[in-house]
């Protein structure tokens, strides 16, 4: 049977505001355990939450970036469940009226664009972190549990997609593009490895061409785009196998094991969770007036998709434009090179080729290199003027990246400037002809393959700095 996966993705984004969602404690992911805590985020008796205006501004920004409608008045709710790293044993979250709803994100896989609808983006607070001390690091075999409440109360945005995703590759593309947008907004450091952006996938499968959804399984603990893609892929195959062998897929939460490349069933909760949501009585509804929303919209940076279109218009090809738009450092260099006067296609090729390769090789961030847009412009100009061969240009770029100076300076210092001073070149050609009269006569007599012999000699006497094309032309002009 042919199965079609139906996938929805929930993304949690930790906002890097100066202070936490409901108190003045710092949001600082590197602080010593339990140093950024106060009565409010520790849930001490009598403490009350006060909402962080910046976090509301930032979730609005996120919503607008994903084409969401913004609720003029949204409500906080309490989500009740007992867990030792949750100080109040309820989480302040949003239920029926989130700040953002009904948006979308277009993703491209193999040249085909699909629109993934976003159901909602809501505001909540993060929990603390449990460290289970024991052999496996998992709760079952832990001998004790340490709690760090620095993360408790950090503002968290949950972005929930509709079940519009139809393949593991599309799931990955959605997650990657979403992360790119969030990073571009500057509201989160959006680092997967540090958990400041986290993905859960809801996966079900159904026979191709049918409408009803299959039983949904939630997969957690993917900490890279690659594991997300692998986990979803695995889950599609696993569910297919279960159904084809006559079994039934259970609704459950599964944990992705990166090492083994499989999902495991997590200890399932009895029945479905009853969070007993009710309106948070300690907080008034959040109001985002049209005026405030418009002010926030005005601060939105260019979205990655729009940027790609613009880069293509500036001369970059499609793939380069995506690569450039996906990296703030490359994008900044590209823009300043074009602004300085470099041809877009040339700057794009160098940045996505040589410069990216150098960055990988040296494990250096492009943004930390000495390269500037002006350097790229000068380099392009030298190549266009034939003062540098394409091979020499790459060498020059390497020296510039290493911080030796600008292209002109570096090319001169390393003696890489091509001779295209025609008098010097003519002089070299004439010398070579004079030294090889016999061969020249044969060339003039029609033995055209000897042209390479003469060009080679010219290159040798000029120490490789002659422009071979110019040399060829001069030699031919001497044939008469």
């Amino acid at each position, binding site marked *: 049977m042919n199965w079609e996966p139906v996938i929805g993705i929930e993304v949690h984004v930790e906002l890097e505001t100066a202070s936490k969602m409901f108190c003045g404690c710092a949001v600082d992911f590197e602080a010593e355990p339990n140093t950024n805590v106060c009565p409010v985020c520790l849930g001490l*008796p009598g403490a009350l939450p006060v909402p962080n205006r910046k976090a509301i501004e930032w979730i609005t920004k996120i919503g607008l970036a994903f084409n969401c409608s913004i609720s003029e008045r949204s409500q906080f709710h*309490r989500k009740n469940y007992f867990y*030792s790293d949750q100080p109040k*044993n309820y989480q302040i979250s949003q239920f029926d009226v989130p700040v953002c709803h009904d948006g979308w994100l277009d993703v491209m896989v193999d040249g085909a664009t699909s629109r993934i609808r976003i159901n909602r983006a809501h505001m909540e607070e993060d929990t603390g972190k449990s460290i289970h001390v024991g052999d496996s690091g998992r709760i079952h075999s832990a001998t004790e549990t340490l*709690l760090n409440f620095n993360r408790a109360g950090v503002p968290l945005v949950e972005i929930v997609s509709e079940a519009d995703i139809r393949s593991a590759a599309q799931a990955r593309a959605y997650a990657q593009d979403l992360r790119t947008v969030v990073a571009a907004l500057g509201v989160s450091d959006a680092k997967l490895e540090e958990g400041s952006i986290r993905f859960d996938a809801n996966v079900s499968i159904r026979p191709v061409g049918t409408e009803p959804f299959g039983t949904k399984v939630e997969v957690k603990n993917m900490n890279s785009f690659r594991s997300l893609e692998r986990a979803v892929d695995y889950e599609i195959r696993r569910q297919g196998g279960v159904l084809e062998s006559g079994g039934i897929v259970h609704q459950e939460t599964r944990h992705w094991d990166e090492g083994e490349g499989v999902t495991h069933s997590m200890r399932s909760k009895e029945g479905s969770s009853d969070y007993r949501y*009710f309106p948070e009585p300690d907080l008034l509804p959040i109001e985002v007036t049209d005026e405030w929303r418009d002010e926030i919209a005005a601060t939105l940076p260019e979205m990655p998709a729009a940027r790609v279109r613009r880069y293509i218009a500036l001369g970059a090809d499609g793939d380069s434009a995506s690569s450039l738009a996906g990296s703030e450092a490359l994008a900044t260099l590209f823009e300043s090179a074009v602004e300085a006067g470099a041809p877009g296609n040339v700057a794009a090729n160098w940045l996505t080729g040589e410069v990216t390769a150098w960055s990988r090789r040296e494990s250096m961030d492009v943004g930390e290199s000495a390269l500037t847009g002006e350097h790229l412009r000068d380099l392009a100009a030298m190549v266009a003027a034939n003062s540098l061969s394409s091979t020499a240009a790459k060498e020059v770029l390497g020296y510039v990246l290493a911080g030796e100076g600008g292209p002109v300076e570096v090319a001169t210092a390393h003696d890489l400037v091509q001779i295209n001073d025609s008098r010097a070149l003519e002089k070299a050609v004439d010398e070579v002809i004079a030294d090889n009269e016999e061969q020249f006569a044969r060339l003039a007599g029609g033995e055209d393959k000897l042209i390479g012999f003469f060009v080679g000699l010219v290159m040798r006497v000029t120490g490789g700095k002659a422009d071979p094309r110019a040399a060829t032309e001069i030699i031919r002009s001497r044939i008469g």
Partner: protein
Amino acid sequence: MTELSQLTLVEAAVALRSGECTSVALTESVLHRASLTEASVHAYLTIDRQGAMAAAEASDRRIADEKPIGPLDGLPIALKDNMMTKGIETTASSKILSGYIPPYDGTVVKLLREAGAVFVGKTNMDEFAMGSSTENSAYGPTRNPWNLDTVPGGSSGGSAAAVAAGSALAGLGSDTGGSIRQPAALCGLVGMKPTYGLVSRYGLIAFASSLDQIGPLTRSVQDAAVLYEVIAGHDPHDATSFPGPAPSGTERLGAGVEGLRVGVVNELSGEGIDDEVLAAFRATVDRLANAGAEIVELSLPSTATALSAYYLIAPAECSANLARFDGVRYGLRVEGSTVDEMMSLTRAEGFGSEVIRRILLGTYALSAGYYDAFYGQAQRVRTLIIQEFATAYQQVDVLVSPTAPAPAFELGAKTQDPLSMYMQDICTIPSNLSGHPAMSVPVGLSASGLPIGFQVMAPALGETVMFQVASAIEALSDDIGRPVLEVVAS
């Protein structure tokens, strides 16, 4: 001169400022009184003798050095044990918080300190403010100084008994369904609940967040107004705090009731109210009429359903508010073989039966499938009550009713019957649901010598007129005096 411990706040403040007495003398008088009465009354959970004396000495120095002094400078005040006091054990009368020392002061505590108040100690209460008799305390009941066989009311019964017995000049209580006004009525005091949002809840252990308010328990209406003015005001730590200036409490004290329209709520002044209480209520209404008030009889039919709505909303909120007491970070911990088991055992051991009853009620009312039938319906009733009150206040300046359905009852009389205990708050609950201010003023004694209270309710931010009417009632009523309490040195 009367014994210092029996003065009103305002009388004591005058005596201090004129040099007639010192704060040390005043505080010693109150502490001495406590040493005589506590064995029988048990108003306090903690008496901070050392802290109180230090604060009193500091106040006397301020006065002697002619430094600026606050409106409550040197005055000994009692705090209900659900208000956070930095460095002083705060338990809300629960075993689960036994030994808990808060690392911070609640906003009202901070404001009182800034006003120069001397804290005598932390008073007994119904556990987590759940109850109407101060018998639901893990540390034993408080007794009513007017008759030691009776209850002081609750849940602020400790503060009320302390003020009535003379072991504090005034006290703070918290009122979720009547917990300031009902004990005020039963102990012969003035008790006042401000408009929701006028007094910060930051540092008050939450029972039902949308209903809780802190307010004064005092020996006079003027004292209540003074204390109210100190604690009211915007607090950036409480998101539900009213952003504007609080209405004055003292501005129209003694201005009489000539021309004011006073609404008598039929549903709250008939069925279920004790005859003696009703007679005292009617007599007071007549006095107000004679003093020039226009009396309007009116009906607020939804108040009949207020009690039911309250007993869904308050438990629902408390089920979440009390979830934080789990043995993980502070307070009692009973070890178990898993985290879940540790939490369950801790909560089973740490909470008393009334608290457990309400957590279960609230959990049930919020659970999937019951939300609409219970919590949702209760919120709709609440909206109706708010609308009915709003309509009523278009016709009248204040509404009046008895405060409690009967004078103080005997200890143990209602402990086995939660519903009859819940009926104690039948007159006080509507204004908690509406968020409006209300207060109780003593208007007489029953045949058996127990105080009877009269309730004045006002629209949101209507404190000024409420105090005006209350001061008129106080002036028109016979002084009930102070309880005669046989004391033995302990």
